[in-house]
């Protein structure tokens, strides 16, 4: 398994991005990909959308952040601290690549 997760233009016979190719992180990526570019969602809303525990979501967000796919911004909403989460440009691209690879794999298996 390669350490470089983002293989742009990966041919379909290559492995799927291991950072995204795990049930929980895939769900996080899909939910974030639905936001418009330039939008961020607050942590509790994302948690509610996904039905994950705060601890669990934090772990997966950290992994996605380490890969450079997700941006976590701490800010203030009045006096209340808020954590906002959004996909980075790289994350959006990686997710598109991932989806394209899955579709390519699917058409390969259908051809067989």
């Amino acid at each position: 398994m390669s350490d470089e997760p983002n293989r742009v233009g990966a041919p379909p016979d290559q492995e799927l991005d291991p950072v995204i190719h795990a049930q929980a992180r895939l769900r996080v990526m899909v939910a974030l990909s639905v936001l418009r570019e330039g939008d961020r969602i607050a942590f509790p809303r994302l948690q509610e959308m996904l039905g994950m525990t705060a601890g669990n979501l934090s772990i997966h967000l950290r992994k996605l952040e380490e890969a450079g796919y997700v941006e976590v911004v701490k800010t203030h909403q009045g006096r209340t601290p808020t954590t906002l989460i959004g996909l980075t440009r790289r994350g959006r691209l990686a997710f598109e690549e991932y989806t394209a690879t899955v579709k390519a794999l699917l058409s390969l298996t259908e051809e067989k």
Partner: protein
Amino acid sequence: MVHEDPDERAPASPEETLRLIEAERAAAQRNIQPDPRLTYVPWGVAWLVGFGLLFLRLGPDGRVFVAMPAWLPLAVLYVLLIAAFVVSGVTGARAGRHVRGVSSVQGLRYGVSWAAGFAGVVVIATRYSDRLPDQEVVLLWSGLSVAVVGVLYIAGAAIWQSRDMFVLGMWITVVNIGGFLAGPGWHSLAISLAGGGGMLVAGFVEWLRWRRGEC
């Protein structure tokens, strides 16, 4: 590689992966986009019933199709419009809650454009209300208001790239102009049936898309 943690488990096959992506995407879309039944239907009902009563009480050439107090149609229209404003506003705000960035700025400015449009309508129409017969007052207010609504739906379609919204805005504009030219009474009928009806149809079409997670 064997993982103990089910979260780390990869979907079993490309089919399952794609199915998971599609299902999650549709669910996330439904969560983040307001339910069109709650954003379109209340306005459609308000127009259908409110303008319908106006037509029945203040018909073409001063005809009264159904006897009722003169204030009743307008009172019903206002109450229904306020209800529609509250329901669609709360629905939109709930969908956009805790999302910051480009879309919250767009939503805010779009909201301001409605307030700005109606501020203009109120100021202009108020000035002439005392000088015109009842029939013409209704035509003035509703003609101007519906013109603003049609234009703002078209503008909204440009912002959110919604073809349905564009068609609805064009439809409302054409119905408004046609009804206005036909004269008092007819305008109310046109806005009730074609305008309100168009809103209900648009709400249904958008709801079908929304249910599939397409918009």
